[in-house]
Protein backbone atom coordinates (compact mmCIF):
# COMPACT_ATOMS: atom_id res chain seq x y z
CA UNK A 1 0.00 0.00 0.00
CA UNK A 2 2.82 2.41 0.90
CA UNK A 3 4.53 1.70 -2.38
CA UNK A 4 1.25 2.28 -4.16
CA UNK A 5 0.73 5.64 -2.47
CA UNK A 6 4.31 6.75 -3.04
CA UNK A 7 4.06 5.90 -6.73
CA UNK A 8 0.83 7.82 -7.07
CA UNK A 9 2.26 10.86 -5.28
CA UNK A 10 5.34 10.88 -7.49
CA UNK A 11 3.22 10.59 -10.64
CA UNK A 12 1.05 13.42 -9.37
CA UNK A 13 4.05 15.66 -8.70
CA UNK A 14 5.46 14.98 -12.17
CA UNK A 15 2.07 15.72 -13.68
CA UNK A 16 1.87 19.11 -11.98
CA UNK A 17 5.38 19.95 -13.11
CA UNK A 18 4.70 18.95 -16.72
CA UNK A 19 1.46 20.86 -16.66
CA UNK A 20 3.17 24.02 -15.40
CA UNK A 21 5.88 23.71 -18.04
CA UNK A 22 3.52 22.99 -20.91
CA UNK A 23 1.26 25.87 -19.92
CA UNK A 24 4.20 28.24 -19.78
CA UNK A 25 5.58 27.40 -23.19
CA UNK A 26 2.17 27.17 -24.82
CA UNK A 27 1.34 30.66 -23.71
CA UNK A 28 4.68 31.85 -25.11
CA UNK A 29 3.45 30.55 -28.46
CA UNK A 30 0.41 32.81 -28.49
CA UNK A 31 0.68 35.02 -31.56
CA UNK A 32 0.59 38.82 -31.29
CA UNK A 33 2.38 38.57 -27.97
CA UNK A 34 1.21 40.54 -25.03
CA UNK A 35 0.02 44.13 -24.95
CA UNK A 36 -1.12 43.93 -28.55
CA UNK A 37 -3.07 47.15 -28.13
CA UNK A 38 -1.83 49.42 -30.98
CA UNK A 39 -2.34 52.52 -28.84
CA UNK A 40 0.58 51.61 -26.63
CA UNK A 41 3.82 53.23 -27.75
CA UNK A 42 6.93 51.17 -28.28
CA UNK A 43 8.54 52.91 -25.34
CA UNK A 44 5.68 52.21 -22.99
CA UNK A 45 5.59 48.63 -24.17
CA UNK A 46 9.29 48.14 -23.46
CA UNK A 47 8.69 49.54 -19.99
CA UNK A 48 5.82 47.13 -19.40
CA UNK A 49 7.89 44.21 -20.67
CA UNK A 50 10.63 45.12 -18.25
CA UNK A 51 8.12 45.45 -15.43
CA UNK A 52 6.76 41.96 -15.95
CA UNK A 53 10.21 40.50 -16.63
CA UNK A 54 9.30 39.67 -20.20
CA UNK A 55 12.41 41.21 -21.72
CA UNK A 56 14.64 38.41 -20.53
CA UNK A 57 15.34 35.24 -22.56
CA UNK A 58 12.48 32.75 -22.48
CA UNK A 59 14.45 30.15 -20.57
CA UNK A 60 15.35 32.59 -17.84
CA UNK A 61 11.71 33.62 -17.63
CA UNK A 62 10.85 29.98 -17.23
CA UNK A 63 13.25 29.53 -14.32
CA UNK A 64 11.92 32.62 -12.59
CA UNK A 65 8.39 31.35 -13.16
CA UNK A 66 9.22 27.98 -11.63
CA UNK A 67 10.94 29.57 -8.65
CA UNK A 68 7.99 31.83 -8.01
CA UNK A 69 5.59 28.95 -8.45
CA UNK A 70 7.43 27.00 -5.78
CA UNK A 71 6.82 29.95 -3.45
CA UNK A 72 3.17 30.01 -4.50
CA UNK A 73 3.80 33.38 -6.08
CA UNK A 74 1.99 33.68 -9.40
CA UNK A 75 3.14 37.16 -10.23
CA UNK A 76 1.20 40.28 -10.99
CA UNK A 77 -2.00 40.59 -12.97
CA UNK A 78 -1.70 42.37 -16.31
CA UNK A 79 -5.32 43.42 -16.60
CA UNK A 80 -5.38 44.69 -13.04
CA UNK A 81 -1.96 46.29 -12.63
CA UNK A 82 -0.50 46.19 -9.18
CA UNK A 83 -2.65 43.29 -7.95
CA UNK A 84 -0.99 40.05 -6.99
CA UNK A 85 -2.61 37.07 -8.73
CA UNK A 86 -2.42 34.98 -5.57
CA UNK A 87 -4.43 37.61 -3.72
CA UNK A 88 -6.97 37.75 -6.54
CA UNK A 89 -7.46 33.99 -6.45
CA UNK A 90 -7.72 33.67 -2.70
CA UNK A 91 -9.39 37.05 -2.23
CA UNK A 92 -9.65 37.02 1.56
CA UNK A 93 -11.23 40.48 1.58
CA UNK A 94 -14.37 39.74 -0.43
CA UNK A 95 -14.49 35.97 -0.15
CA UNK A 96 -14.73 35.72 -3.93
CA UNK A 97 -12.50 33.56 -6.09
CA UNK A 98 -11.26 30.25 -4.77
CA UNK A 99 -13.30 30.14 -1.54
CA UNK A 100 -16.48 30.82 -3.46
CA UNK A 101 -15.78 28.10 -6.04
CA UNK A 102 -14.73 25.63 -3.38
CA UNK A 103 -17.98 26.14 -1.54
CA UNK A 104 -20.01 25.66 -4.68
CA UNK A 105 -18.07 22.55 -5.70
CA UNK A 106 -18.19 21.01 -2.25
CA UNK A 107 -21.91 21.65 -1.90
CA UNK A 108 -22.52 19.90 -5.20
CA UNK A 109 -20.22 16.99 -4.34
CA UNK A 110 -21.73 16.47 -0.90
CA UNK A 111 -25.19 16.62 -2.36
CA UNK A 112 -24.66 14.50 -5.46
CA UNK A 113 -22.56 11.56 -4.25
CA UNK A 114 -24.90 10.20 -1.54
CA UNK A 115 -27.91 11.09 -3.66
CA UNK A 116 -26.54 9.27 -6.71
CA UNK A 117 -25.57 6.21 -4.69
CA UNK A 118 -28.96 6.10 -2.99
CA UNK A 119 -30.91 6.43 -6.22
CA UNK A 120 -28.73 3.89 -8.00
CA UNK A 121 -29.16 1.40 -5.17
CA UNK A 122 -32.89 1.94 -5.10
CA UNK A 123 -33.07 1.40 -8.84
CA UNK A 124 -30.84 -1.70 -8.81
CA UNK A 125 -32.72 -3.37 -5.98
CA UNK A 126 -36.04 -2.89 -7.76
CA UNK A 127 -34.74 -4.10 -11.07
CA UNK A 128 -37.42 -4.35 -13.72
CA UNK A 129 -40.11 -2.69 -11.62
CA UNK A 130 -41.80 0.62 -12.40
CA UNK A 131 -39.59 2.54 -9.95
CA UNK A 132 -36.47 1.22 -11.65
CA UNK A 133 -37.73 2.16 -15.09
CA UNK A 134 -38.67 5.65 -13.92
CA UNK A 135 -35.24 6.17 -12.35
CA UNK A 136 -33.45 4.87 -15.46
CA UNK A 137 -35.44 7.31 -17.59
CA UNK A 138 -34.72 10.18 -15.23
CA UNK A 139 -31.01 9.49 -15.07
CA UNK A 140 -30.82 9.23 -18.85
CA UNK A 141 -32.45 12.65 -19.07
CA UNK A 142 -30.13 13.93 -16.37
CA UNK A 143 -27.10 12.79 -18.33
CA UNK A 144 -28.35 14.00 -21.69
CA UNK A 145 -29.45 17.51 -20.80
CA UNK A 146 -26.42 19.79 -20.50
CA UNK A 147 -26.09 21.54 -17.17
CA UNK A 148 -26.24 24.98 -18.75
CA UNK A 149 -29.63 24.19 -20.26
CA UNK A 150 -30.88 23.04 -16.88
CA UNK A 151 -29.40 26.11 -15.24
CA UNK A 152 -30.85 28.63 -17.70
CA UNK A 153 -34.25 26.97 -17.55
CA UNK A 154 -34.40 26.73 -13.79
CA UNK A 155 -33.16 30.27 -13.30
CA UNK A 156 -35.88 31.48 -15.63
CA UNK A 157 -38.65 29.38 -14.15
CA UNK A 158 -37.91 29.31 -10.41
CA UNK A 159 -36.10 32.63 -10.22
CA UNK A 160 -37.62 35.02 -12.73
CA UNK A 161 -41.11 33.72 -13.37
CA UNK A 162 -42.13 32.09 -10.08
CA UNK A 163 -39.81 34.21 -7.99
CA UNK A 164 -39.29 31.45 -5.40
CA UNK A 165 -35.52 31.54 -5.30
CA UNK A 166 -32.89 34.24 -5.84
CA UNK A 167 -31.15 34.16 -9.21
CA UNK A 168 -27.75 35.51 -8.25
CA UNK A 169 -25.12 35.04 -5.57
CA UNK A 170 -24.05 32.15 -3.39
CA UNK A 171 -23.94 33.31 0.21
CA UNK A 172 -27.26 32.65 1.92
CA UNK A 173 -28.68 29.14 2.11
CA UNK A 174 -31.55 30.17 -0.12
CA UNK A 175 -29.14 31.43 -2.74
CA UNK A 176 -27.24 28.17 -2.61
CA UNK A 177 -30.15 25.92 -3.55
CA UNK A 178 -30.45 26.52 -7.28
CA UNK A 179 -26.73 26.57 -8.18
CA UNK A 180 -26.08 23.42 -6.14
CA UNK A 181 -28.98 21.53 -7.68
CA UNK A 182 -28.12 22.62 -11.22
CA UNK A 183 -24.52 21.59 -10.76
CA UNK A 184 -25.46 18.26 -9.15
CA UNK A 185 -27.97 16.87 -11.63
CA UNK A 186 -25.38 15.53 -14.04
CA UNK A 187 -23.16 13.86 -11.40
CA UNK A 188 -26.20 12.40 -9.66
CA UNK A 189 -27.37 10.81 -12.90
CA UNK A 190 -23.89 9.50 -13.73
CA UNK A 191 -23.33 8.01 -10.30
CA UNK A 192 -26.84 6.54 -10.13
CA UNK A 193 -26.43 4.79 -13.48
CA UNK A 194 -23.07 3.31 -12.59
CA UNK A 195 -24.27 2.28 -9.15
CA UNK A 196 -27.28 0.55 -10.63
CA UNK A 197 -25.23 -1.34 -13.22
CA UNK A 198 -22.66 -2.48 -10.74
CA UNK A 199 -25.27 -3.47 -8.18
CA UNK A 200 -27.12 -5.54 -10.78
CA UNK A 201 -23.81 -7.19 -11.65
CA UNK A 202 -23.24 -8.23 -8.04
CA UNK A 203 -26.69 -9.81 -8.10
CA UNK A 204 -25.28 -12.52 -10.36
CA UNK A 205 -21.96 -12.79 -8.56
CA UNK A 206 -21.06 -16.17 -7.10
CA UNK A 207 -20.37 -14.75 -3.67
CA UNK A 208 -23.91 -13.42 -3.47
CA UNK A 209 -25.23 -16.89 -4.23
CA UNK A 210 -22.95 -18.19 -1.50
CA UNK A 211 -24.28 -15.57 0.88
CA UNK A 212 -27.80 -16.73 0.09
CA UNK A 213 -26.81 -20.35 0.58
CA UNK A 214 -25.54 -19.37 4.02
CA UNK A 215 -29.07 -18.40 4.99
CA UNK A 216 -28.30 -14.75 5.57
CA UNK A 217 -31.13 -12.24 5.62
CA UNK A 218 -31.67 -10.32 2.43
CA UNK A 219 -30.98 -6.99 4.10
CA UNK A 220 -27.59 -8.20 5.23
CA UNK A 221 -26.74 -9.63 1.82
CA UNK A 222 -27.63 -6.34 0.18
CA UNK A 223 -25.70 -4.14 2.59
CA UNK A 224 -22.64 -6.22 3.40
CA UNK A 225 -22.13 -8.16 0.20
CA UNK A 226 -23.75 -6.32 -2.69
CA UNK A 227 -23.61 -2.58 -1.98
CA UNK A 228 -20.12 -2.76 -0.55
CA UNK A 229 -18.71 -4.39 -3.65
CA UNK A 230 -20.85 -2.34 -6.00
CA UNK A 231 -19.40 0.86 -4.54
CA UNK A 232 -15.89 0.07 -5.78
CA UNK A 233 -16.42 1.15 -9.41
CA UNK A 234 -18.35 4.19 -8.19
CA UNK A 235 -15.32 5.39 -6.29
CA UNK A 236 -13.21 5.25 -9.44
CA UNK A 237 -15.42 7.73 -11.27
CA UNK A 238 -15.28 10.27 -8.46
CA UNK A 239 -12.14 11.65 -10.14
CA UNK A 240 -13.82 12.35 -13.49
CA UNK A 241 -16.90 13.58 -11.60
CA UNK A 242 -14.77 16.16 -9.82
CA UNK A 243 -13.36 17.24 -13.16
CA UNK A 244 -16.81 17.67 -14.65
CA UNK A 245 -17.93 19.58 -11.55
CA UNK A 246 -15.02 21.92 -12.18
CA UNK A 247 -16.26 22.59 -15.71
CA UNK A 248 -19.78 22.85 -14.42
CA UNK A 249 -18.79 25.65 -12.07
CA UNK A 250 -17.83 27.73 -15.12
CA UNK A 251 -21.39 27.65 -16.35
CA UNK A 252 -23.14 27.90 -13.03
CA UNK A 253 -20.93 30.76 -11.93
CA UNK A 254 -21.60 32.68 -15.11
CA UNK A 255 -25.37 32.09 -15.01
CA UNK A 256 -25.80 32.83 -11.31
CA UNK A 257 -23.31 35.64 -11.34
CA UNK A 258 -21.09 34.05 -8.73
CA UNK A 259 -17.61 35.60 -8.61
CA UNK A 260 -15.70 32.37 -8.53
CA UNK A 261 -12.63 31.09 -10.34
CA UNK A 262 -14.54 29.97 -13.42
CA UNK A 263 -15.73 33.51 -13.82
CA UNK A 264 -12.16 34.84 -13.44
CA UNK A 265 -10.85 32.33 -15.93
CA UNK A 266 -13.24 33.29 -18.69
CA UNK A 267 -12.58 36.98 -17.99
CA UNK A 268 -8.82 36.51 -17.93
CA UNK A 269 -8.92 34.90 -21.35
CA UNK A 270 -11.02 37.68 -22.82
CA UNK A 271 -8.64 40.21 -21.22
CA UNK A 272 -5.60 38.27 -22.35
CA UNK A 273 -4.34 38.41 -18.78
CA UNK A 274 -1.73 35.72 -19.27
CA UNK A 275 -0.41 35.71 -15.75
CA UNK A 276 -3.86 34.96 -14.44
CA UNK A 277 -4.53 32.39 -17.17
CA UNK A 278 -1.30 30.63 -16.32
CA UNK A 279 -1.94 30.74 -12.59
CA UNK A 280 -5.49 29.47 -12.87
CA UNK A 281 -4.52 26.76 -15.34
CA UNK A 282 -1.86 25.43 -12.99
CA UNK A 283 -4.28 25.72 -10.08
CA UNK A 284 -7.04 23.79 -11.86
CA UNK A 285 -4.58 21.16 -13.01
CA UNK A 286 -3.15 20.74 -9.54
CA UNK A 287 -6.61 20.55 -8.10
CA UNK A 288 -7.57 17.76 -10.49
CA UNK A 289 -4.34 15.91 -9.85
CA UNK A 290 -4.94 16.09 -6.11
CA UNK A 291 -8.54 14.99 -6.57
CA UNK A 292 -7.48 11.98 -8.66
CA UNK A 293 -4.76 11.16 -6.17
CA UNK A 294 -7.26 11.25 -3.33
CA UNK A 295 -9.62 8.98 -5.24
CA UNK A 296 -6.80 6.54 -6.02
CA UNK A 297 -5.74 6.35 -2.40
CA UNK A 298 -9.35 6.08 -1.27
CA UNK A 299 -9.84 3.20 -3.68
CA UNK A 300 -6.75 1.50 -2.34
CA UNK A 301 -8.09 1.86 1.16
CA UNK A 302 -11.47 0.30 0.49
CA UNK A 303 -10.34 -2.43 -1.87
CA UNK A 304 -8.23 -4.90 0.08
CA UNK A 305 -6.93 -6.39 -3.16
CA UNK A 306 -5.02 -3.16 -3.79
CA UNK A 307 -4.33 -2.29 -0.17
CA UNK A 308 -2.57 -5.57 0.53
CA UNK A 309 -0.70 -6.00 -2.72
CA UNK A 310 2.99 -5.98 -2.17
Amino acid at each position, binding site marked *: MLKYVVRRVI*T*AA*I*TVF*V*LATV*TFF*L*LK*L*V*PNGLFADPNITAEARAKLYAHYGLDKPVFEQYLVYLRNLAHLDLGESIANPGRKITTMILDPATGNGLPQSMRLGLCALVFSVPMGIALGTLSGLNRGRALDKALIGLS*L*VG*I*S*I*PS*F*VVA*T*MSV*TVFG*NILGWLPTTGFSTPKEMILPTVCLSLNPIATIARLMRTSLVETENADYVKTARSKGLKRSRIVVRHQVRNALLPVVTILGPIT*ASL*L*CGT*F*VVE*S*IFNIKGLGCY*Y*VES*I*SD*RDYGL*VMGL*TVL*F*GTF*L*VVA*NLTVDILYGLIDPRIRLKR
Partner: protein
Amino acid sequence: MQTQKDGLDELFRPEPCAEAERMDALPQVSYAADVVKRFLNTPSVIVFSVILAIIIACCVLVPILSPRPITGIIDEAINHKPSAEYWLGADKFGHDFFTKMWKGGQTSFKVGFFAAVLQTLIGVVVGAISGYAGGRIDQFIMRVVDVFISIPYMVIVLVVRLIMGSSSYTIIFALVVTGWLNTARLVRGQILQLKNEDYVLAAQSMGVSPATVLFRHLIPNTLGVVIVSFTLAVPQAMFSEAFLSFIGMGSGEVSWGSLIRTGMEVRFRHPWQLIAPSAVLALTMLCIQLLGDSLRDALDPKLRK
Protein backbone atom coordinates in the same frame (compact mmCIF):
# COMPACT_ATOMS: atom_id res chain seq x y z
CA MET B 1 -41.73 -54.80 -17.09
CA GLN B 2 -44.98 -55.81 -18.74
CA THR B 3 -45.68 -55.46 -22.38
CA GLN B 4 -48.19 -52.71 -22.83
CA LYS B 5 -50.62 -52.11 -25.63
CA ASP B 6 -49.10 -48.74 -26.48
CA GLY B 7 -48.79 -49.15 -30.22
CA LEU B 8 -45.03 -48.88 -30.09
CA ASP B 9 -44.28 -52.48 -31.02
CA GLU B 10 -42.87 -51.80 -34.45
CA LEU B 11 -40.62 -49.04 -33.10
CA PHE B 12 -38.31 -51.47 -31.29
CA ARG B 13 -35.95 -51.73 -34.19
CA PRO B 14 -32.34 -50.55 -34.06
CA GLU B 15 -31.72 -47.20 -35.61
CA PRO B 16 -28.50 -45.25 -35.92
CA CYS B 17 -28.30 -42.30 -33.57
CA ALA B 18 -28.34 -39.05 -35.48
CA GLU B 19 -25.77 -36.85 -33.82
CA ALA B 20 -24.02 -35.81 -37.03
CA GLU B 21 -27.06 -34.52 -38.84
CA ARG B 22 -28.30 -32.81 -35.71
CA MET B 23 -25.13 -30.78 -35.43
CA ASP B 24 -25.53 -29.58 -39.01
CA ALA B 25 -29.07 -28.61 -38.35
CA LEU B 26 -28.14 -26.26 -35.51
CA PRO B 27 -28.80 -22.73 -36.63
CA GLN B 28 -25.60 -20.73 -36.93
CA VAL B 29 -26.13 -17.17 -35.78
CA SER B 30 -23.14 -14.93 -36.32
CA TYR B 31 -22.22 -12.52 -33.58
CA ALA B 32 -22.77 -9.47 -35.77
CA ALA B 33 -26.19 -10.64 -36.93
CA ASP B 34 -27.12 -11.40 -33.36
CA VAL B 35 -26.04 -7.93 -32.22
CA VAL B 36 -28.00 -6.21 -34.98
CA LYS B 37 -31.05 -8.31 -34.22
CA ARG B 38 -30.96 -7.57 -30.53
CA PHE B 39 -30.25 -3.90 -31.16
CA LEU B 40 -33.22 -3.51 -33.49
CA ASN B 41 -35.48 -5.56 -31.28
CA THR B 42 -35.58 -2.83 -28.67
CA PRO B 43 -38.64 -0.69 -29.41
CA SER B 44 -37.08 2.51 -28.09
CA VAL B 45 -34.18 2.11 -30.52
CA ILE B 46 -36.49 2.48 -33.52
CA VAL B 47 -38.25 5.51 -32.04
CA PHE B 48 -35.07 7.33 -31.12
CA SER B 49 -33.31 6.44 -34.38
CA VAL B 50 -36.20 8.01 -36.27
CA ILE B 51 -36.11 11.14 -34.11
CA LEU B 52 -32.36 11.44 -34.56
CA ALA B 53 -32.69 10.92 -38.31
CA ILE B 54 -35.29 13.70 -38.50
CA ILE B 55 -33.03 16.06 -36.53
CA ILE B 56 -30.06 15.33 -38.77
CA ALA B 57 -32.18 15.71 -41.91
CA CYS B 58 -33.41 19.08 -40.68
CA CYS B 59 -29.86 20.22 -39.97
CA VAL B 60 -28.81 19.31 -43.49
CA LEU B 61 -31.89 20.38 -45.44
CA VAL B 62 -33.49 23.37 -43.69
CA PRO B 63 -30.59 25.82 -44.17
CA ILE B 64 -30.38 24.83 -47.86
CA LEU B 65 -34.09 24.94 -48.59
CA SER B 66 -35.05 27.91 -46.44
CA PRO B 67 -35.83 31.01 -48.51
CA ARG B 68 -34.92 33.32 -45.62
CA PRO B 69 -31.28 34.42 -45.41
CA ILE B 70 -29.39 34.22 -42.17
CA THR B 71 -26.47 36.44 -43.09
CA GLY B 72 -26.20 40.20 -43.07
CA ILE B 73 -28.86 42.31 -41.39
CA ILE B 74 -32.44 41.97 -42.57
CA ASP B 75 -34.01 45.20 -41.35
CA GLU B 76 -37.68 44.42 -41.91
CA ALA B 77 -37.52 41.19 -39.89
CA ILE B 78 -35.62 42.33 -36.78
CA ASN B 79 -37.12 40.77 -33.67
CA HIS B 80 -40.07 39.48 -35.68
CA LYS B 81 -42.67 37.65 -33.62
CA PRO B 82 -43.34 33.98 -34.46
CA SER B 83 -45.68 33.83 -37.44
CA ALA B 84 -46.59 31.66 -40.39
CA GLU B 85 -43.55 33.01 -42.20
CA TYR B 86 -41.12 33.11 -39.27
CA TRP B 87 -42.06 29.96 -37.32
CA LEU B 88 -39.91 30.75 -34.34
CA GLY B 89 -39.67 34.47 -34.96
CA ALA B 90 -36.51 36.26 -35.95
CA ASP B 91 -33.57 37.48 -33.90
CA LYS B 92 -32.01 40.90 -33.51
CA PHE B 93 -30.35 40.63 -36.91
CA GLY B 94 -33.65 39.77 -38.56
CA HIS B 95 -32.53 36.19 -39.23
CA ASP B 96 -35.25 33.56 -39.27
CA PHE B 97 -34.67 31.70 -36.05
CA PHE B 98 -35.97 28.38 -37.33
CA THR B 99 -33.42 28.34 -40.14
CA LYS B 100 -30.67 29.58 -37.90
CA MET B 101 -31.34 26.88 -35.33
CA TRP B 102 -30.74 24.10 -37.84
CA LYS B 103 -27.70 25.90 -39.18
CA GLY B 104 -26.43 25.82 -35.59
CA GLY B 105 -27.09 22.10 -35.53
CA GLN B 106 -24.67 21.66 -38.43
CA THR B 107 -21.85 23.04 -36.32
CA SER B 108 -22.78 20.82 -33.40
CA PHE B 109 -22.87 17.66 -35.51
CA LYS B 110 -19.74 18.58 -37.41
CA VAL B 111 -17.75 19.09 -34.23
CA GLY B 112 -19.29 16.08 -32.53
CA PHE B 113 -18.70 13.69 -35.40
CA PHE B 114 -15.21 14.71 -36.46
CA ALA B 115 -13.91 15.05 -32.94
CA ALA B 116 -15.29 11.62 -32.06
CA VAL B 117 -13.88 9.95 -35.19
CA LEU B 118 -10.43 11.43 -34.77
CA GLN B 119 -10.12 10.80 -31.07
CA THR B 120 -11.34 7.23 -31.48
CA LEU B 121 -8.83 6.55 -34.25
CA ILE B 122 -5.91 7.97 -32.30
CA GLY B 123 -7.05 6.29 -29.13
CA VAL B 124 -7.34 2.88 -30.79
CA VAL B 125 -3.93 3.06 -32.43
CA VAL B 126 -2.08 4.37 -29.37
CA GLY B 127 -3.94 2.09 -26.98
CA ALA B 128 -3.35 -0.97 -29.16
CA ILE B 129 0.35 -0.24 -29.56
CA SER B 130 0.74 0.41 -25.86
CA GLY B 131 -1.11 -2.71 -24.82
CA TYR B 132 0.50 -4.96 -27.39
CA ALA B 133 4.06 -3.71 -27.08
CA GLY B 134 4.03 -3.81 -23.29
CA GLY B 135 7.15 -3.16 -21.26
CA ARG B 136 8.86 0.21 -21.48
CA ILE B 137 6.79 1.54 -24.37
CA ASP B 138 3.61 0.75 -22.51
CA GLN B 139 4.94 2.33 -19.31
CA PHE B 140 5.92 5.48 -21.15
CA ILE B 141 2.67 5.88 -23.04
CA MET B 142 0.61 5.25 -19.96
CA ARG B 143 2.57 7.86 -17.96
CA VAL B 144 1.95 10.37 -20.73
CA VAL B 145 -1.74 9.51 -20.68
CA ASP B 146 -1.79 9.84 -16.89
CA VAL B 147 -0.32 13.32 -17.13
CA PHE B 148 -2.65 14.45 -19.89
CA ILE B 149 -5.72 13.06 -18.20
CA SER B 150 -5.14 15.26 -15.16
CA ILE B 151 -5.32 18.41 -17.24
CA PRO B 152 -8.87 19.73 -17.32
CA TYR B 153 -10.02 19.71 -20.92
CA MET B 154 -11.34 23.24 -20.50
CA VAL B 155 -7.80 24.41 -20.01
CA ILE B 156 -6.52 22.77 -23.16
CA VAL B 157 -9.45 24.02 -25.17
CA LEU B 158 -8.95 27.56 -24.00
CA VAL B 159 -5.20 27.55 -24.48
CA VAL B 160 -5.51 26.04 -27.96
CA ARG B 161 -8.11 28.63 -28.73
CA LEU B 162 -5.77 31.39 -27.62
CA ILE B 163 -3.04 30.10 -29.91
CA MET B 164 -5.00 29.05 -32.96
CA GLY B 165 -7.79 31.59 -32.89
CA SER B 166 -11.44 30.64 -32.84
CA SER B 167 -12.98 28.33 -35.42
CA SER B 168 -14.73 25.01 -35.25
CA TYR B 169 -11.46 23.30 -36.22
CA THR B 170 -9.81 24.73 -33.12
CA ILE B 171 -12.55 23.20 -31.04
CA ILE B 172 -12.24 19.86 -32.82
CA PHE B 173 -8.48 19.88 -32.38
CA ALA B 174 -8.74 20.69 -28.69
CA LEU B 175 -11.39 18.03 -28.12
CA VAL B 176 -9.30 15.42 -29.90
CA VAL B 177 -6.23 16.34 -27.85
CA THR B 178 -8.12 15.60 -24.65
CA GLY B 179 -10.54 12.98 -25.91
CA TRP B 180 -8.27 10.20 -27.17
CA LEU B 181 -6.97 9.46 -23.68
CA ASN B 182 -9.97 7.51 -22.47
CA THR B 183 -10.27 5.48 -25.66
CA ALA B 184 -6.57 4.68 -25.48
CA ARG B 185 -6.88 3.45 -21.88
CA LEU B 186 -9.93 1.40 -22.74
CA VAL B 187 -8.37 -0.23 -25.79
CA ARG B 188 -5.13 -0.91 -23.96
CA GLY B 189 -7.02 -2.69 -21.20
CA GLN B 190 -8.86 -4.82 -23.74
CA ILE B 191 -5.69 -5.68 -25.62
CA LEU B 192 -3.91 -6.65 -22.43
CA GLN B 193 -6.75 -9.04 -21.69
CA LEU B 194 -6.94 -10.46 -25.20
CA LYS B 195 -3.18 -10.86 -25.45
CA ASN B 196 -3.34 -13.81 -23.08
CA GLU B 197 -6.17 -15.52 -24.91
CA ASP B 198 -5.27 -18.92 -26.27
CA TYR B 199 -5.95 -18.11 -29.89
CA VAL B 200 -3.57 -15.15 -29.78
CA LEU B 201 -0.86 -17.24 -28.16
CA ALA B 202 -1.50 -19.88 -30.79
CA ALA B 203 -1.12 -17.38 -33.60
CA GLN B 204 2.08 -16.05 -32.07
CA SER B 205 3.56 -19.48 -31.61
CA MET B 206 2.87 -20.24 -35.26
CA GLY B 207 5.06 -17.29 -36.23
CA VAL B 208 2.38 -14.87 -37.36
CA SER B 209 3.89 -11.38 -37.51
CA PRO B 210 3.07 -9.00 -34.66
CA ALA B 211 1.36 -6.54 -36.98
CA THR B 212 -0.92 -9.29 -38.31
CA VAL B 213 -1.72 -10.48 -34.82
CA LEU B 214 -2.52 -6.93 -33.81
CA PHE B 215 -4.69 -6.07 -36.79
CA ARG B 216 -6.27 -9.47 -37.49
CA HIS B 217 -6.84 -10.80 -34.00
CA LEU B 218 -6.61 -8.08 -31.39
CA ILE B 219 -8.11 -4.90 -32.80
CA PRO B 220 -11.20 -6.56 -34.34
CA ASN B 221 -12.00 -8.06 -30.96
CA THR B 222 -11.94 -4.67 -29.28
CA LEU B 223 -14.39 -3.34 -31.83
CA GLY B 224 -17.40 -3.63 -29.53
CA VAL B 225 -15.80 -1.50 -26.87
CA VAL B 226 -14.57 0.97 -29.46
CA ILE B 227 -18.00 1.37 -31.05
CA VAL B 228 -19.57 2.03 -27.69
CA SER B 229 -16.91 4.54 -26.72
CA PHE B 230 -17.41 6.24 -30.08
CA THR B 231 -21.15 6.58 -29.58
CA LEU B 232 -20.46 8.13 -26.20
CA ALA B 233 -17.75 10.42 -27.58
CA VAL B 234 -20.13 12.01 -30.09
CA PRO B 235 -22.53 13.51 -27.54
CA GLN B 236 -19.60 14.31 -25.30
CA ALA B 237 -17.98 16.40 -28.03
CA MET B 238 -21.29 18.01 -28.98
CA PHE B 239 -21.82 18.86 -25.36
CA SER B 240 -18.34 20.37 -25.05
CA GLU B 241 -18.86 22.48 -28.15
CA ALA B 242 -22.22 23.76 -26.91
CA PHE B 243 -20.76 24.39 -23.49
CA LEU B 244 -17.82 26.38 -24.86
CA SER B 245 -20.08 28.39 -27.11
CA PHE B 246 -22.32 29.04 -24.16
CA ILE B 247 -19.59 30.56 -22.02
CA GLY B 248 -18.49 32.55 -25.05
CA MET B 249 -15.37 30.53 -25.77
CA GLY B 250 -16.78 28.70 -28.77
CA SER B 251 -15.97 28.63 -32.44
CA GLY B 252 -17.62 31.92 -33.26
CA GLU B 253 -19.89 30.09 -35.69
CA VAL B 254 -23.61 29.75 -35.07
CA SER B 255 -24.21 26.72 -32.91
CA TRP B 256 -26.80 25.48 -30.44
CA GLY B 257 -24.62 26.61 -27.57
CA SER B 258 -24.23 30.16 -28.86
CA LEU B 259 -27.95 30.35 -29.65
CA ILE B 260 -28.79 29.33 -26.10
CA ARG B 261 -26.40 32.00 -24.87
CA THR B 262 -28.13 34.74 -26.84
CA GLY B 263 -31.50 33.18 -26.04
CA MET B 264 -30.65 33.56 -22.37
CA GLU B 265 -30.30 37.31 -22.86
CA VAL B 266 -33.67 37.75 -24.56
CA ARG B 267 -35.51 35.04 -22.67
CA PHE B 268 -38.31 37.28 -21.41
CA ARG B 269 -39.24 38.88 -24.71
CA HIS B 270 -38.51 35.91 -26.99
CA PRO B 271 -38.72 32.78 -24.86
CA TRP B 272 -38.72 30.58 -27.97
CA GLN B 273 -35.18 31.60 -28.79
CA LEU B 274 -34.09 30.00 -25.54
CA ILE B 275 -36.49 27.06 -25.42
CA ALA B 276 -36.17 25.83 -29.01
CA PRO B 277 -32.38 25.37 -29.23
CA SER B 278 -32.26 24.01 -25.66
CA ALA B 279 -34.94 21.46 -26.47
CA VAL B 280 -33.32 20.34 -29.73
CA LEU B 281 -29.91 20.03 -28.10
CA ALA B 282 -31.29 18.05 -25.17
CA LEU B 283 -33.31 15.78 -27.44
CA THR B 284 -30.32 15.08 -29.66
CA MET B 285 -28.12 14.24 -26.68
CA LEU B 286 -30.84 12.00 -25.29
CA CYS B 287 -31.22 10.12 -28.58
CA ILE B 288 -27.52 9.50 -29.06
CA GLN B 289 -27.03 8.54 -25.42
CA LEU B 290 -29.90 6.09 -25.55
CA LEU B 291 -28.77 4.55 -28.83
CA GLY B 292 -25.28 4.20 -27.37
CA ASP B 293 -26.72 2.47 -24.31
CA SER B 294 -28.78 0.05 -26.38
CA LEU B 295 -25.81 -0.67 -28.59
CA ARG B 296 -23.68 -1.43 -25.56
CA ASP B 297 -26.31 -3.83 -24.26
CA ALA B 298 -26.59 -5.47 -27.68
CA LEU B 299 -22.83 -5.89 -27.93
CA ASP B 300 -22.52 -7.39 -24.47
CA PRO B 301 -21.76 -11.07 -25.06
CA LYS B 302 -22.97 -11.87 -21.57
CA LEU B 303 -26.49 -11.03 -22.64
CA ARG B 304 -26.27 -13.19 -25.74
CA LYS B 305 -28.76 -15.98 -25.65
